[in-house]
């Protein structure tokens, strides 16, 4: 199926080759990822240590030996450090305890929430508007009744996306009711409607500003770039600090999280508008406003709809996670169920989330694809009949059996699922002959991989960690990315959460290693065998639309709780993106190069290692970058299922009202995200030559 793959890396077609929407779990669409890969290839023509800023001739020799230079400097610094700084974790003298001031801020906000003018005249109104509008949408949805909502969803899907998706939508909503999740689904939907509307508006306005003004573009781009690599979890704490736990905080976190893709894509669409068309409009005497309304915005419609699609998907992901700060709805059911390790209940709430995600994604994506194709002429008669039918269903539904899903029609899957899980616990967890058991695997993974890795990282002198971060970032990126990465890592130490951060880092590294191992293998295999590629595609499509939160359910069922399941969820979450980018990168390798290798008699192996992989290097680097950022997002959420470390601190802070701990952990998560992104950022992404960095 072609209508599927969603969100395209926002700027992948532009100068900024490969900045994909990391958090949204929805990277590359085949076409754009190919361009992103080839754009990347254009910027990094020399494979090995590429020269940075095309300096004058004297620097070129230096640049050529960059790898060696970095190695020598690192070795020197190692010796110096060992002599001057000694070993051990982050020195306490360099740490700053922020809990005091943060507590005071938090207390001040709580004390003044009802009296300070800032709250009375601004934030209070914001909060009220959010509550009222969510409530209003919720009431409307309830008033429509289950029959009405289902029929309306079907009708809408039919209008924008055709019969097949209409049936899918109807079936999905029916399934939500069938699982006994009608009310939570409506709660989540109400929250989503408000949050998406707000984030599309906000993102659209920001994108408009960035699309029309170069200066705004220069200011906004790094901010949006950074926002997209931060784990969803990091957004929760600041809004809770200001708004307290509840619906307003959840909605606002969702809005802030979901707005960047809309802003990026709007700006991209406006900037990439066919210059010839815009010039033609100017030549006919169009004013700036006419140009915008009649040419630039319509030309950007595809990007705008893609932005809406991405915003919706990110909003859904966040709306589910935001159950931790009082969003209610489906996410809350999953959250509660996971807290008591009730896999059956979690699954009953998780399935509607997945269905909602698939329907929302496919319908909006299909709407985007329809653009450009001439509108199918449906007769007004058919349309009216359909609308009438919906109205009839609504009225009929109300007359027959009220509004809520009929109680007799539900299917309780929690119990059978739990029985199955119990059976698994009894039979598969351990002691299966030869292969061991899932719990054994998890145990071994923790004992032999996660444990040593964590201990090793924590044993390393703090300055060697900084050094390693800097050297790695330099090898892959530029001086600037290296500086940012080192500063971010140092900030973690200063915040006083060095050890938990390294714990999180160890989980990330282990999960990334597994992800890349499987992902590269699968990606290469999918690129070389078109049959496997075709078979994988729908699977990847579905996996890429699911919110991160949902992945916790099966791993808890399989592996119990702890650090290993968190890492496993991260692997599953990051895998589709890595597979897809790898496969596209390998497939996009210049066929002429491959053909010439084949004509020289290269074996399949030689072709792979001497032609395909080296030429796909930019894509592979991008896959690493995506993998790292996606893994981090889930490892942090793993705090909910016993992952410990920073994620746990954040959850603990939220749950106990200990915002200082939570905020510090949140800030450390941000720093870790920044560091990991910058370290793996492919070379020259921010090359000054690549216009307007």
């Amino acid at each position: 199926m072609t209508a599927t793959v969603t969100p395209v890396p926002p700027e992948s077609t532009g100068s900024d080759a490969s900045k994909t929407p990391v958090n949204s779990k929805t990277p590359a669409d085949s076409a754009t990822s190919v361009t992103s890969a080839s754009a990347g290839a254009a910027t990094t023509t020399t494979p090995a240590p590429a020269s940075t800023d095309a300096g004058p001739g004297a620097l070129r020799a230096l640049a050529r030996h960059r790898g060696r230079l970095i190695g020598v400097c690192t070795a020197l610094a190692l010796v110096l450090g060992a002599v001057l700084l000694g070993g051990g974790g982050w020195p306490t003298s360099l740490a700053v305890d922020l809990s005091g001031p943060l507590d005071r801020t938090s207390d001040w906000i709580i004390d003044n929430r009802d009296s300070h003018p800032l709250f009375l005249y601004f934030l209070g109104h914001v909060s009220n508007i959010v509550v009222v509008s969510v409530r209003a949408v919720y009431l409307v949805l309830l008033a429509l009744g289950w029959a009405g909502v289902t029929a309306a969803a079907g009708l809408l899907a039919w209008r924008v996306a055709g019969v097949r998706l209409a049936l899918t939508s109807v079936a999905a909503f029916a399934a939500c009711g069938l699982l006994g999740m009608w009310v939570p689904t409506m709660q989540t939907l109400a929250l989503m409607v408000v949050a998406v509307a707000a984030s599309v508006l906000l993102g659209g306005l920001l994108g408009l500003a960035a699309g029309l003004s170069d200066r705004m573009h220069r200011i906004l781009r790094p901010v949006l770039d950074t926002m997209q690599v931060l784990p969803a979890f990091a957004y929760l704490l600041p809004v809770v600090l200001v708004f307290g736990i509840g619906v307003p905080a959840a909605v606002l976190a969702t809005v802030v999280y979901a707005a960047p893709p809309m802003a990026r894509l709007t700006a991209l669409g406006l900037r990439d508008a066919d210059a010839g068309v815009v010039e033609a409009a100017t030549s006919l005497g169009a004013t700036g406003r006419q140009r915008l309304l009649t040419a630039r915005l319509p030309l950007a419609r595809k990007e705008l709809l893609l932005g809406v699609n991405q915003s919706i998907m990110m909003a859904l992901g966040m709306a589910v996670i935001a159950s931790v700060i009082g969003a209610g709805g489906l996410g809350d059911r999953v959250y509660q169920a996971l807290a008591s390790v009730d896999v059956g209940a979690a699954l009953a709430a998780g399935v509607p989330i997945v269905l909602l995600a698939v329907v929302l994604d496919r319908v909006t994506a299909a709407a985007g694809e329809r653009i450009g194709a001439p509108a199918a002429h449906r007769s007004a008669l058919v349309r009216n009949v359909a609308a009438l039918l919906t109205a009839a269903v609504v009225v009929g539904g109300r007359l027959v059996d009220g509004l809520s899903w009929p109680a007799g029609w539900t299917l309780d899957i929690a119990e059978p699922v739990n029985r199955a899980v119990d059976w698994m616990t009894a039979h598969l967890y351990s002691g299966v002959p030869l292969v061991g058991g899932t719990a054994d695997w998890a145990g071994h993974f923790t004992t032999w991989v996660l444990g040593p890795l964590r201990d090793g990282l924590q044993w390393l002198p703090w300055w060697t960690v900084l050094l390693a971060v800097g050297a790695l970032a330099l090898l892959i990126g530029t001086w600037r990315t290296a500086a940012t990465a080192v500063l971010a890592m140092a900030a973690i130490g200063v915040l006083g959460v060095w050890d938990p951060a390294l714990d999180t880092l160890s989980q990330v590294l282990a999960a990334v290693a597994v992800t890349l191992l499987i992902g590269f293998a699968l990606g290469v295999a999918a690129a070389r065998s078109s049959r496997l590629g075709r078979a994988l595609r729908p699977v990847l499509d579905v996996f890429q639309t699911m919110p991160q939160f949902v992945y916790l359910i099966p791993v808890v069922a399989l592996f119990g709780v702890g650090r290993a399941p968190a890492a496993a969820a991260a692997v599953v979450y990051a895998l589709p993106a890595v597979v897809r980018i790898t496969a596209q990168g390998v497939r996009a390798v210049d066929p002429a190069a491959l053909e010439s290798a084949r004509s020289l008699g290269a074996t399949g192996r030689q072709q792979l290692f001497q032609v395909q992989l080296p030429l796909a290097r930019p894509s592979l680097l991008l896959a690493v970058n995506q993998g790292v950022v996606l893994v981090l997002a889930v490892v942090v959420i793993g705090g909910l299922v016993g992952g410990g470390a920073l994620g746990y601190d954040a959850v603990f802070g939220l749950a106990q009202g200990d915002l200082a701990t939570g905020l510090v952990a949140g800030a450390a998560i941000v720093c870790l995200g920044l560091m990991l992104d910058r370290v793996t950022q492919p070379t020259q992404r921010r090359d000054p030559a690549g216009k307007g960095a």
Partner: protein
Amino acid sequence: MNTPPHTASPHTATPPQASGESVFSVRDLWKVFGPKADRVPADQELAALDAAELRERTGCTAAVRDVSFDVRKGEVFVVMGLSGSGKSTLVRCLTRLIEPTSGTISIDGEDVLSMDTGRLRELRRHRAAMVFQHFGLLPHRTVLDNIAYGLEIQGVGRGERRDRAAEFVTKVGLDGMEHRRPSQLSGGQQQRVGLARALAVDPEVLLFDEPFSALDPLIRRDMQEEVVRLHREEGRTMVFITHDLNEALKLGDRIALMRDGRIVQLGTPEEIVGAPADDYVRDFVRDVPREQVLTVRSAMRPALIGESEAGPALAPSATVHEAIEAVARTGENARVVEDGRCLGVVDHAGLLGVVAGVPAATGKAVA
């Protein structure tokens, strides 16, 4: 022998309609791209540098250098040059789609460079419409709405502009395609839409920026004939940019040949082919079938006694090609006759001289 390249009196306001008046009058026009571009035209020394030296010295590129010309009412004025010669920049300067660096441009005597935005918009809306190489159509609109787009920008109501656009659909031969999208049309058809869009605003001047370069040769010929036809029917002033010499010769009443931002020769096709101003132009026109461009005037010699009565008669505007045909058919020398008066005679020697590109023994003369 023909009119000098520049007609005089550009700046005084002149009433339109009078044939021979200039529509556009361009003087000393410069367009320099790069940092502090202003200083280049102002500085004698910099202005004299060639492109490579200028870039070396200032980092600037002069796309248009010290260009002056007039576009007369009702003529097809062709600007011809290879890519990078500055011709596209030049035509964009005319309506300030690109802001010129220095010089003056006037349209019907009104200074274009001093226009405020409102006046400039007025100019673009009503007086000069442009046809682009890559069409510049709105992909989300139908053919009809694309053609009506200029009118929409002017604020014409939907019903009226669609009615008016419908006329132009017929005029450019797109009947039955009103409701298609540009993506459903061939390149030639798309350019017809672009042409109709420009015509629909009823501009005083049509500006063409290499409109047919992106089209297949056969389609291109159709479109060129379309332009010739339109010009014959409406007599609208046209400024036509092209890199195709044959196209220039076919369409142009006068041709300005550009090289490195300068006009190296300005004249009728016959002047360009018959009397190249320098080696560059000579080289350029070397492969042109001269007999199809030059008129019998260039092969004519004074009539000897008795010759002015015998032989086939030709108009002075007839091409040498036609004269060859007449001479070959009848076996006699042909007379060039205007208003019943014999201007001269063309014979084998004269005609062969033109084809060979050497002055015949009896050659030119008698204007």
